């Protein structure tokens, strides 16, 4: 047997490297490493479900952030988030590039119509929302870590939640929060009769038929 570059090799050692005998093993190892690289590079995958979307629209104010799921190997694992945390998660997922301070997060959520009119399509008028106060962002971040930890445990993913919801210090004393994850949005359309364009949907206007058989609408 000879030594070359620190490897033990004999004559049939070279043959092994050319042999397909363990090619199946190499393929499995390659698959696991590719999965690991993806998780490390892009972060885990999440699916954010919005419901009460107006048919024909894309993603508009009035929808509800219904649920958030961790997606791993074709399974969905539900994140147990109350409304405030669903709003926070959705907001951070929409702004993944730059870490934001608690103050910026508070301002951003207040300023966006989507969160001000959250779930209004479902109630017909009234928004069902939460104010995210900047003094509570740190508390919410801890709770979000906990929800992520539970979902990762369920999915048997050994990922540190603080590597997904990052909190990075600025050169001052501020903490910047950032979501390092791959997020997709899924929508469930409203099915109320008056939201369907084909049924003459007109967002709640009532039609009355007069005795002559003609119809007129009132608001």
């Amino acid at each position: 047997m000879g030594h070359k570059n620190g490897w033990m090799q004999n004559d049939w050692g070279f043959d092994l490297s050319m042999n397909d005998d363990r090619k199946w093993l190499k393929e499995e190892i390659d698959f696991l490493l590719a999965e690991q690289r993806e998780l490390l590079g892009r972060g885990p995958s999440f699916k954010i479900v919005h419901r009460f979307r107006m048919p024909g629209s894309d993603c508009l104010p009035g929808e509800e952030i219904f649920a958030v799921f961790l997606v791993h190997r074709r399974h969905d694992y539900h994140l147990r988030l109350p409304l405030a945390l669903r709003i926070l998660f959705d907001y951070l997922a929409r702004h993944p590039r730059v870490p934001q301070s608690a103050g910026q997060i508070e301002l951003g959520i207040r300023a966006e119509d989507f969160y001000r009119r959250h779930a209004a399509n479902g109630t017909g008028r009234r928004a069902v929302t939460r104010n995210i106060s900047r003094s509570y962002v740190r508390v919410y971040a801890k709770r979000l870590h906990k929800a992520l930890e539970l979902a990762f445990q369920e999915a048997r993913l050994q990922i540190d939640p603080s590597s997904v919801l990052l909190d990075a210090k600025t050169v001052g004393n501020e903490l910047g929060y950032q979501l390092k994850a791959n997020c997709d949005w899924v929508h469930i359309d409203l099915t109320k009769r008056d939201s369907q364009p084909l049924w003459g949907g007109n967002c709640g206007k009532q039609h009355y038929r007069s005795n002559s058989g003609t119809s007129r609408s009132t608001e």
Partner: protein
Amino acid sequence: MFSAEPHRELILIDSESNNRISVLLLDSDPNHAEELTRSLQALGYGVTTRSDIISVLHGLSNSDFDILIVSSNRPGEWKTYVTRIHKTTRRAKRFPPRILCLARVYRGPQERLDAERLGVRLIYER
């Protein structure tokens, strides 16, 4: 060059191996372990072999590995090992190795389902 120690540890020491994928192999069958180690090395991996779960857990606490291969011939044994490994690696803050279980006997689809639920891959040797 490599060194073999009493508990069948084969460590590849190679100045060019900084980027090589490191594999920790748990296999209580010495002949099978030796054959598998040679195959893995021929495929280009750096291999550390252990014959019992205690030394594997010790190895995981002290070093970083990319892949952990659990080779087991007894039914259900790999599940016990994987559960213990998960408990150990969960406490550590590093990103743990991906686990691959090697089985030699097919015992039905339930075994693979159990592996999926534990977050590991189970494959059968060919």
